[in-house]
């Protein structure tokens, strides 16, 4: 159940320049959140931040291995005012959190899993929702491939964590890590490699990347889910500020769907990017 709470910051870690991992204590949320869902994060004083900011839940953390998780993490990049303010938070600080929100990735169920390969595509900070996905897949994660691209090596945060859990193919624009290419290049090759394999591609990253991934998948009739971004003000469906256009609306009235409620994850066939 979605709730609005003031939560304690359990800790914060800097992952190289401009990337941070913020840990927030909220056991109930950590236990029910699904990969691709998000929270609205704000400061408790509304005077300091009128509009909260949306962040994917990146990972959940238990106090001891084997225990149920007691907190969740947010993996973020510093862009502007809000993320700069968040980057200054230390353990013990209080944040206001609304969540879990939205509809996450939907996965082939276990029976189908052997027949369906899960392919993840992340551009830069678009890797944020995937640690939780791998956690939720458990041992099945090792069959997952992650195509992970960035401008440069510094953008590939949590890389060794991913490498311990799934197959990782990296690309960078400056060649400082993996192939010097856009992430869509090896992705297309992979899909062409064994075109008859049943696959689902889950992608998160900047808009131009998502557009390219969608085209690659649609052209090959590969199932593809996109985690979209739009400006989010409320996060729970009431302001109608966060819409994207549907490809095949049932009526003119249903032309737009809300990223925060019907998404943020959409089937690539459903939306116009």
């Amino acid at each position, binding site marked *: 159940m979605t709730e609005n709470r003031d939560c304690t910051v359990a800790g914060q870690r800097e992952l190289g320049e401009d990337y941070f991992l913020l840990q927030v204590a909220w056991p109930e949320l950590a236990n029910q959140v699904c990969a691709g869902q998000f929270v609205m994060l704000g400061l408790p004083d509304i005077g300091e931040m009128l509009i909260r900011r949306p962040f994917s839940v990146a990972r959940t953390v238990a106090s001891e291995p084997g225990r149920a998780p007691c907190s969740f993490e947010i993996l973020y990049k510093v862009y502007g005012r809000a993320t700069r303010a968040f980057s200054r938070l230390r353990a013990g600080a209080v944040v206001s959190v609304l969540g879990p929100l939205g509809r996450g990735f939907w996965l082939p169920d276990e029976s189908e899993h052997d027949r369906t390969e899960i392919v993840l595509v992340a551009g830069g900070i678009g890797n944020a929702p995937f640690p939780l996905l791998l956690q939720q897949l458990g041992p099945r994660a090792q069959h997952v491939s992650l195509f992970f691209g960035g401008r440069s090596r510094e953008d590939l945060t949590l890389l060794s964590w991913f490498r311990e859990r799934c197959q990782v193919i990296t690309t960078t624009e400056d060649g400082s890590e993996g192939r010097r290419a856009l992430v869509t290049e090896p992705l297309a090759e992979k899909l062409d490699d064994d075109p008859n394999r049943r696959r689902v591609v889950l992608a998160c990253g900047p808009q131009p990347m998502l557009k390219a991934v969608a085209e690659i998948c649609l052209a090959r009739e590969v199932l593809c889910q996109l985690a979209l971004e739009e400006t989010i*003000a409320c996060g729970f469906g009431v302001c109608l500020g966060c819409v994207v256009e549907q490809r095949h609306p049932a009526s003119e009235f249903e032309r737009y769907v809300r990223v925060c409620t019907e998404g943020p994850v959409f089937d690539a066939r459903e939306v116009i990017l």
Partner: protein
Amino acid sequence: MSPAVRTAVDLGRGLVLRNPLLTASGTFGYGLEFEPFLDLARLGGIVVKGISPKERSGNAPARIIETPSGMLNAIGLQNIGVMRFVQEKLPALRERDTALIVNVFGNSIDDYVTVVEQLEAEEGIAALELNLSCPNVEEGGLEIGRSPRSIEQVTHAVRQRTRRALWVKLTPNVSDISETARAAVSGGADAVSLVNTYVGMVIDVERRRPVLSHGHGGLSGPAIRPLAIAAVYQVCQAVDVPVIGIGGIVAARDVVEFMMAGARAVQVGTANYNDPAIAAKLVDGLVEWCAAHEVADVNQLVGAAQQ
């Protein structure tokens, strides 16, 4: 919380609210979405999203952008239309123990009359609020709300067709809001609510075009609070009907400020996004403020700062 503080306020035509805290149209959905976060019965009332004769899909994205201490929106009055509102929302809403105010808008006198006539037979609506002021839709509320004559005409036309309390919501994008307020009153308004959003624009300098697909939008939030306070203060000197204050309320202190400027009730808007339970918290905060300041009845605040 002191139970000794009296909070009921009279908004005219027999409508007495439990307390002065309302939620502003377009920022509180159809109300039911907020039930996970607060008890609607705690509020003085709720104003639902603006209703038009037909459903509307609204503007293309982007529709919102943050600004310094504010928010700019051009939703384009997306709504489900009066028929679906009556069928899908009203049955549940009228069960709730709170005053339900329906915000109505249109592009013409006929539009307003159509919606109001369809609502007239329905139970469970405490008041109608006419949005003559939305700066977002071409040929929409904009023109009507800036012309005293048009305001009077629309108000009068609706007045003929409803026995309900009738509120007119004023746009602040005018040279003299006292004049438009007087026009609403002479058209038959039982109360005026102000302010709606201010026309604003943000430009995306990288893409060299306005951020919002619509170009301009409406500014709300604490940035506009001093402007709204001035408008309420001024209108209270111009008309005798109750004034409902709106604009940038985020704390109990702001509620008190609007009431001292002359508002009989207030609406909280953009802040609902930041904290979906804020309207109920403001009721508590207002009562606490009054108790701490030995104010036995919130009505004693009304106009206290007027000379």
